[in-house]
C-alpha cells in the first residue's frame, strides 16, 4: 500500500503528444478512477503507471520511489486487464499463485494467500479448473484474485468490467467497492462508464484528448464541472449546454426569449449549462425557458422529454415526473434552479464563476 505521485506526466509517440502533462497525488488507500471517452489516453496513462508504456516526460512515484525506469515487476503493482489475460494452461489456483511463485514466496504463504483471496471472491469451488471452464464473471474474479494475492502497493484496473453483461457488471461493481473498503488498497481504475466512475471513486480524473480536464471528488465533478467537456460527460441524461447572451441581470436565450437569472458571472456571450434534473415546471406567468417537445420517454419513475428551445434548433432534455402526461408537440415552460447554474467560457470551455 502506498502513495502514488504523478508529476507532469507526458507521453508522445513519434513526436505526437498524446498525454499532455498530468499531475495528481494519490493518497494511500485512495480509490481514483480515470474516466473519459475512448481514445482520451486513460488506458495509456494507467499503462505508464504499470510500466508497460515508457514515460516520455515527467515522473511517476510509487511509495516514495521514482519508478520511471523500473520494470513492472519492480514497481510493486498488480494489474487487472480488460480481457483478464488469464494464463490459459494454468488452473485458477496456479493463475493466482504464479506471481507469488516468481517472487519466491514460501509454499505455505502462497497457499494461505490464495485461499484467502478465493474465499473473498467465492472462487473456492473453481480453484482446480482451467480458465476456459469458467464463465465471464468467474474469469473476472480470478483476474481480481490474481492481482489481490500480490498485496501490491498499487492496484491497477483497466476497464475490468466492460466485458461483462449489465447485471453482472452492477454486481461486480459493488464487490469491487466492498473489496476496496476491506483491503484499503491504493487503486487506480480506468473506465469509460460514468456510473462506475461516480460510484467507485474517491476522486475522479476526467480525461479528454490527453488532458486531465478535472481532478476532483465525484460530487464536485457533478456539482461544479470544471469545463464544458466534463459537464457534458458526467451526468445522465447529459447536461443541456447552449450559448446565451448575458446582460442586465439575465440572459437572452436562443430564440430570443429573455430569462432573468441571478449570479450571471459577466456580460457578453457565455455557454449556459442546465442539468435536466435541475429544471422545474414554470408557474403561470413566470419567466421561463419555452421548450417544444419532440418526444417523451417514460421510464416509470421518471419521464424524459426531448425537445428544442422554442424559436431555435437548440436541443433540450427535460426530466419530468413519471406522472407527467406531456406529449409530443406540447409546449412546456421550465425554470432553472438558480443554485445549479453552470457558465462556461465559449472560447476556452472552462468554467466561469460569478
Amino acid at each position: 500500500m502506498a502513495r502514488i505521485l504523478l508529476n507532469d506526466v507526458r507521453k508522445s509517440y513519434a513526436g505526437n503528444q498524446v498525454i499532455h502533462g498530468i499531475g495528481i497525488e494519490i493518497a494511500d488507500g485512495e480509490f481514483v478512477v480515470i474516466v473519459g471517452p475512448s481514445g482520451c489516453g486513460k488506458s495509456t496513462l494507467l499503462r505508464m503507471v504499470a510500466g508497460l508504456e515508457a514515460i516520455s516526460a515527467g515522473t511517476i512515484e510509487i511509495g516514495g520511489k521514482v519508478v520511471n525506469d523500473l520494470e513492472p515487476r519492480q514497481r510493486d503493482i498488480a494489474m487487472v486487464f480488460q480481457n483478464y489475460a488469464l494464463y490459459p494452461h494454468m488452473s485458477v489456483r496456479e493463475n493466482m499463485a504464479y506471481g507469488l511463485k516468481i517472487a519466491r514466496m514460501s509454499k505455505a504463504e502462497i497457499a494461505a494467500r490464495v485461499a484467502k483471496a478465493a474465499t473473498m471472491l467465492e472462487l473456492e469451488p473453481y480453484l482446480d479448473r482451467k480458465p476456459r471452464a469458467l464463465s465471464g464473471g468467474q474469469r473476472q474474479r480470478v483476474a481480481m484474485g490474481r492481482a489481490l494475492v500480490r498485496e501490491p502497493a498499487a492496484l491497477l484496473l483497466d476497464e475490468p468490467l466492460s466485458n461483462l453483461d449489465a447485471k453482472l457488471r452492477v454486481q461486480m461493481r459493488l464487490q469491487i467497492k466492498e473489496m476496496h473498503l476491506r483491503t484499503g488498497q491504493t487503486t487506480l481504475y480506468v473506465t469509460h462508464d460514468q456510473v462506475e466512475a461516480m460510484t467507485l471513486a474517491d476522486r475522479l480524473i476526467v480525461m479528454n484528448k490527453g488532458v486531465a480536464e478535472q481532478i476532483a471528488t465525484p460530487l464536485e465533478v457533478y456539482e461544479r464541472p470544471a469545463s464544458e467537456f466534463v459537464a457534458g460527460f458526467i451526468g445522465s441524461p447529459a447536461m443541456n449546454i447552449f450559448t446565451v447572451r448575458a446582460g442586465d441581470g439575465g440572459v437572452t436565450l436562443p430564440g430570443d426569449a429573455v430569462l432573468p437569472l441571478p449570479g450571471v458571472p459577466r456580460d457578453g456571450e457565455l455557454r449556459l449549462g442546465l442539468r435536466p434534473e435541475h429544471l422545474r415546471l414554470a408557474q403561470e406567468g413566470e419567466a421561463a425557458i419555452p421548450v417544444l417537445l419532440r418526444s417523451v420517454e417514460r421510464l416509470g419513475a421518471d419521464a424524459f422529454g426531448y425537445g428544442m428551445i422554442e424559436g431555435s434548433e437548440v436541443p433540450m432534455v427535460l426530466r419530468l415526473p413519471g406522472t407527467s402526461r406531456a406529449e409530443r408537440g406540447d409546449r412546456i415552460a421550465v425554470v432553472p434552479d438558480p443554485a445549479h447554474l453552470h457558465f462556461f467560457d465559449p472560447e476556452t470551455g472552462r468554467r466561469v464563476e460569478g
Partner: protein
Amino acid sequence: MAEASPLAPRGAGRLVAHFWMVLGVIVVAFPVYYVFIASTHSTQTILRPPLPLLPGAEAAQNYSDAFSGGISRIGGVSLWRLLANTTIVAMGIALGKIAISMASAYAIVFFRFPLRMACFWLIFITLMLPVEVRIQPTYKVMVDLGLIDTYPGLILPLIASATATLLFRQFFMTIPDELLEAARVDGAGPWRFFRDILWPLSLTNVAAIFVIQFIYGWTQYLWPLLVTNSNDMNTIVIALKKMISFADADTPWNLVMVTSVLAILPPILVVVLMQRWFVKGLVETEK
C-alpha cells in the same frame, strides 16, 4: 466417443464415401503391406512371379538373418547400429530444429532490437535455398571442422529451418499482448515467460513440428551419403540403397524387405504416439 458430425453423409452417400476412403487406404497401404509380405518369403519366391499375397513361412528365418548380421552387403554393420544411427540423426535434426526455430521466432516476435526485420527476412530467404544448392560449401565447412563421419556432421547442417521458424512466429503472434503484459506485471522475465507460458502453450505446435521433422531427418539420403565415408556411420536409408546396388539375382530381396520394414517402423511409431498426444493437446488448449 465422438458423436456423428452433422456433416456426415447418410444412406447411399455414406456408402459411396466409404468406398472411396477404403479405396484410398488400399492404394496407400498396399505397397507397405507388400513389403511386409515379401519380408516373410525367400528370395527365390520373391523373384518368381506371381508374388504371393499372404505371409510365407520364412519370416523367422529372414528376421533372424537380418539381425544376426549375416549381411556382408552393408559392410558388416549390424542393423541395430544402423537403426541407432538413424534414430540419433533424426532425433537430433528434429529437436535441433525445434530449439533453433523456437529461439529465433521468440527473438523476432517478442524483442525489439536493431535489424529485427532484416533478421527475419534473412531467415525467410533461406527458404529459397534447399540443402542441395548449398551442399558444396556446407561440405567444405564440415571437412574444415573435421566433422566428416560424425553425428554433428550429419545433424548440424540440416538443423537450420526457416519453415519451423515461420510456423512458430505465426503461432507466437497469436498470443495476446495482454498475456505477455500480465506475465511482466507478475514478475516474469523473458526466460520465465518462455518456460512457464509460451512453452506450455506451444506444445501442440512442437509435437506437430517434431513429427514432420523426425520423418524428414529419418528419410534424409543425399547429405548422409556425402558426409559419411565409414559404413559405421551410415543411416538405414543409405544401407538399404547399398544392399540393392547389385545385380538383381545377387540382391537378397528378402533381407532388403526386412530392412525396409524395420526402416519404416520407427517413423510410424513416432506418428502414432505423437498424433495421439497432440490431439489431446489440441483439445486441452482450445484456442
